[in-house]
């Protein structure tokens, strides 16, 4: 028997909240290491004991963890509201959490000790990929066990979450093919397979995040059609097409078969349709905003919409080989990565966090933290705009720089990187305000320390991660 979509399950399924709480902590730490890294980049003598080759992986891995933990936490939290809980294994979910936590701490320890695997995104020693594989198997078992029980047709976000899980597993595996000599011993094949897997990997976590956005849009607007229309499924398949085949704009100048990049160029240009769709829907989006802007989660979703628009333009620019000549290997690529990670993914995941809080503690979040949340929201978004503009400016200068002197080029772009670092401080402070507000409530839910202001938490009773 399925439960009401709006009513929290009456069994302890709050392991999703643990993931979200850990995700918020990971984001806070990632921002700190990001800011330290930005200043280290400018002033190498700053924090001499913490070299940049440690700071960067600390920042990146924690940012990736924030995305995974909070997306997974949301799915663990939302799914039981729709499905028969008898098929949902809390035991596996708890093991998933603890294995992820222990592996994550081991990875951070490895970085601090200077033990690396030296791969972009996965800088940790390869052996630590094994427990990560295991956690995704656990998550997949849990997810599909619940999803297949649903008797009615899957809404689109079920498809997106399932796709994200399956393709994460496939592309994470692909990213470790370099361990096989056939791949490792051919430099160009090694680069091609690495970046092919990474392109799809990012697409797979985007599926998890965008699925969450769709779920929230459906719940906020109370319109089931949002996640069931033909157009929505059409856009999903377009996204899937790009996830599978749209990776090679990362590697245009790498001298392997020309058809690989030509095909990727054509695939990337299909995103023009998405851009057109966004512009077409602009007015609808604005009227929807007027209707729901009083809802905090909706404001984060609306902010992510703005960043989708900006980042899609950047993505299209990067994907045209003639323009890529001037942007490849520059800070424009960093701007695109940061823009999608912060502007789109983080805004959606914060919407998810605040939606859960809204469901569980009602208006208490607004009553107690309205001001810091508003300041944090505007500070983060304003800082991000300056942050990205500085990166794009630095990247374009680097991409069109005439001299071969790396030193001269770095001195030329230094003022822009200083603006980027200072904007990074604003970004960090803005997000910290949001994180602190969220954690102060989330912590109470997780540890059941809420008093009368949290009836649902009381009803659920103390959550113990050690119970079956």
């Amino acid at each position, binding site marked *: 028997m399925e439960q009401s979509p709006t009513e929290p399950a009456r069994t302890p399924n709050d392991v999703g909240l643990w993931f979200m709480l850990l995700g918020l902590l990971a984001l806070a730490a990632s921002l700190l290491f990001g800011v330290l890294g930005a200043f280290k*980049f400018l002033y*190498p003598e700053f924090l001499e004991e913490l*070299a*940049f*080759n*440690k700071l*960067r*992986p600390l920042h990146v891995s924690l940012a990736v963890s924030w995305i995974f933990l909070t997306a997974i936490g949301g799915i663990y939290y939302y799914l039981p509201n729709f499905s028969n809980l008898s098929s949902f294994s809390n035991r596996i979910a708890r093991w998933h959490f603890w294995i992820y936590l222990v592996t994550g701490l081991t990875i951070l320890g490895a970085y601090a000790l*200077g*033990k*690396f*695997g*030296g*791969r*972009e995104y996965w*800088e940790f020693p390869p052996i630590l990929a094994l427990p990560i594989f295991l956690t995704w198997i656990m998550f997949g078992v849990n997810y599909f066990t619940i999803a297949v029980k649903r008797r009615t*047709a*899957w809404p689109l976000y079920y*498809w997106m979450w399932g*796709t994200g899980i399956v393709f994460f597993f496939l592309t994470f595996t*692909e990213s470790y093919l370099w361990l096989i000599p056939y791949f*490792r*011993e*051919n*430099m*160009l*094949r090694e*680069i*091609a*397979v690495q*970046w*092919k897997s990474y392109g799809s990997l990012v697409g797979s976590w985007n599926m998890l995040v965008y699925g969450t956005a769709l779920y929230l849009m459906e719940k906020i607007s109370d319109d089931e059609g949002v996640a069931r229309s*033909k157009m929505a*499924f059409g856009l999903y*398949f377009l996204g*899937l*097409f790009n996830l*599978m*085949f749209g990776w090679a704009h990362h*590697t245009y*100048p*790498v*001298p*392997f*078969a020309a*058809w*690989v990049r030509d095909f990727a*160029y054509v695939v990337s240009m299909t995103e023009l349709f998405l851009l057109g769709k966004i512009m077409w829907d602009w007015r609808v989006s604005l009227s929807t905003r007027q209707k729901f802007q009083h809802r905090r989660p909706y404001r984060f979703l609306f902010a992510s919409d703005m960043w989708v628009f900006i980042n899609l333009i950047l993505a299209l620019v990067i994907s*045209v*080989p*003639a*323009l*890529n*000549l001037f942007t490849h*290997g*520059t*800070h424009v690529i*960093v701007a695109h990565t940061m823009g999608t990670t912060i502007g789109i993914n983080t805004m959606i995941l914060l919407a998810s966090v605040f939606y859960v809080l809204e469901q569980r503690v009602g208006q208490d979040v607004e009553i107690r933290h309205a001001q810091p949340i508003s300041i944090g929201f505007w500070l983060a978004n304003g800082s991000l705009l300056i942050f990205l503009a500085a990166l794009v400016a630095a990247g374009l200068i680097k991409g069109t720089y005439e001299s*071969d002197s*790396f030193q001269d080029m770095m001195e030329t772009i230094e003022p822009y990187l200083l603006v980027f670092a200072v904007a990074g401080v604003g970004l960090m402070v803005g997000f910290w305000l949001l994180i602190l507000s969220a954690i102060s409530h989330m912590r109470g839910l997780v540890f059941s320390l809420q008093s009368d202001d949290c009836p649902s938490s009381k009803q659920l009773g103390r959550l113990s991660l050690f119970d079956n």
Partner: protein
Amino acid sequence: MTPSYKRVIFGSFCAVFAVYSAYVWTAGTDIPQNRSPGHQVKAGLALFQEKNCIACHQLYGLGGHMGPDLTNVVSAEGKGPDYARTFIENGTSKMPNFNFNETQVAALVQFLGFVDSSGTYPPKNPEITWYGTVAYGASKNTE
């Protein structure tokens, strides 16, 4: 769109993706190499990864931005193996001195030589077409 339709489309995408992946892993990257990696090159690659050099440096424009791209550092005009060796041995104000021993330094220089032989970056004399593609011209691996 009925559920069965969606499954057929999804399944078709996955089948094409599998074929495409196999093709990229083989024919699409079946690039002739000017040299095979020997023992020293493999040791150099392992060191390059253990020290996470890619956090600061790039190969083919992929990697960090703190240091220069190293794709052709051992053959670039005014640089060369000794130039690379000096930086590896001593570090700079921005790059830590990793205190490599002589064998490790030699292995890293050999690895950079192997990377250098795989191609040219940035591409020389790229030709841009009106529809946005680029012919990248001759590269070391195709000369």
